[in-house]
């Protein structure tokens, strides 16, 4: 995934300083902005990992950030003027301040990268089905409709449909009878639970 770093601070010394420290170790695209207002003109970015280092006590332009979050993995880093943690704001994933060492700043990127690759893995899950997806397969195999599955698992129909889509992507099986065979082969279901004449 493409990585974009934004450093938003009214002080040029801080912008350039942070940028130099990061570029010493990481080859990444860094955009320097003097005000969060300018973030609005980047709302077209999508499918990237965005690391926004923001001046914590300034106006954050949450509207632009929310837009970016829709199509990107966004990490918010608060940059504080003092060491005091009293100001630490919940909206930030990480924090830095004037006195953070170069190592602390660079480590931040590593932490973000690791968490990024982890969340990507959990998405693909090595093709393994989640417990919830297994529940859904079982009910599909028993012949329930999307609506009935939603009612039974206390989830929305929309969620059921998205589970089904993930299941098909992971297993490469689309038809109800194909999923039933999969469920029985993997002991999610006993052959006695279904009417083989009717379903398979």
């Amino acid at each position, binding site marked *: 995934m493409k990585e974009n770093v934004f450093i938003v601070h009214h002080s040029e010394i801080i912008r350039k300083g942070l940028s130099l420290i990061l570029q010493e170790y990481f080859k990444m695209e860094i955009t320097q902005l003097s005000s969060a207002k300018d973030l609005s003109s980047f709302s077209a970015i999508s499918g990237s990992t965005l690391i926004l280092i923001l001046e914590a006590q300034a106006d954050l332009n949450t509207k632009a950030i929310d837009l970016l979050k829709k199509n990107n993995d966004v990490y918010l880093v608060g940059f504080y003027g003092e060491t005091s943690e009293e100001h630490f704001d919940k909206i930030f994933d990480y924090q830095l301040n004037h006195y953070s060492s170069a190592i602390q700043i660079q480590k931040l990127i590593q932490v973000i990268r690791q968490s990024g690759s982890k969340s990507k893995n959990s998405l693909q899950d090595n093709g393994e089905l989640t417990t919830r997806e297994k529940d859904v397969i079982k009910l599909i195999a028993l012949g329930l409709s999307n609506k009935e599955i939603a009612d039974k698992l206390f989830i929305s129909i929309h969620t059921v449909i998205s589970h089904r889509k993930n299941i098909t992507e992971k297993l490469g099986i689309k*038809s109800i009878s194909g999923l039933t065979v999969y469920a029985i082969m993997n002991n999610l279901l006993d052959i006695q639970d279904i009417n083989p004449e009717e379903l398979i």
Partner: protein
Amino acid sequence: MELFRKEDKMSSLITRNYNLLPVINRFGIRLGFKEKTIAEVCQEKKIDTDFFLAIVNTYTDESYFPEAEFLSFSPVLLIDYLKNTHKYYINYVLPKIERLLNQVLQSCPENCSSLKMINTFYQKYKTELLLHLKLEDEKVFPYIINLYENKTLSAEGSFIEVIENEHTNVEVKLSDLENLIIRHLSPNYEDNAMNEFLTALLQFENDLNDHARIEDHILITQVIEFEKELKK
């Protein structure tokens, strides 16, 4: 792949694409062509050369769309060919696949319940496919032949558009079957037996897809146009 032309040698057809062997058989063409060209063999067998080329080229190049040629001959010719293909599936391919699947089943030493499920699924697929072929042979094709003979729309309406949906359903089942075997079945069988079965299955899938493509893109498109004209 380069398209075939009527002055090409008939033998080059097979050396370039051996999947065409059963296709030429369906036209009544058999091996032993000597140096004869495609046009010469077609003439000998009283086959419309343009029609023959349109068919073999559809099998050769997936993006080939023989609009102009196909409009020049009657869909009845095409239906004859499609019916022959159905017979080839029913009398030869499906029994062969089933025989190979039985060999896989017999090669399983123990814990064969998953393999038996695959067999059940195959039977389900086969039943559905046979129903589809039957619908085409007994309802769709006679409807089209009748339409071209009488040049009037039937009072019961057209059931042409139903087929495309059916094709998708049949294709999905076959791809599910392959994925179940390739990705999810634990290998409790003799490898050579499975390889033979799977190869036959994959080859059948290709042939069937080409067949459905001829039906959807050439036959059905042509009939829908004709129906529109009759409505005017």
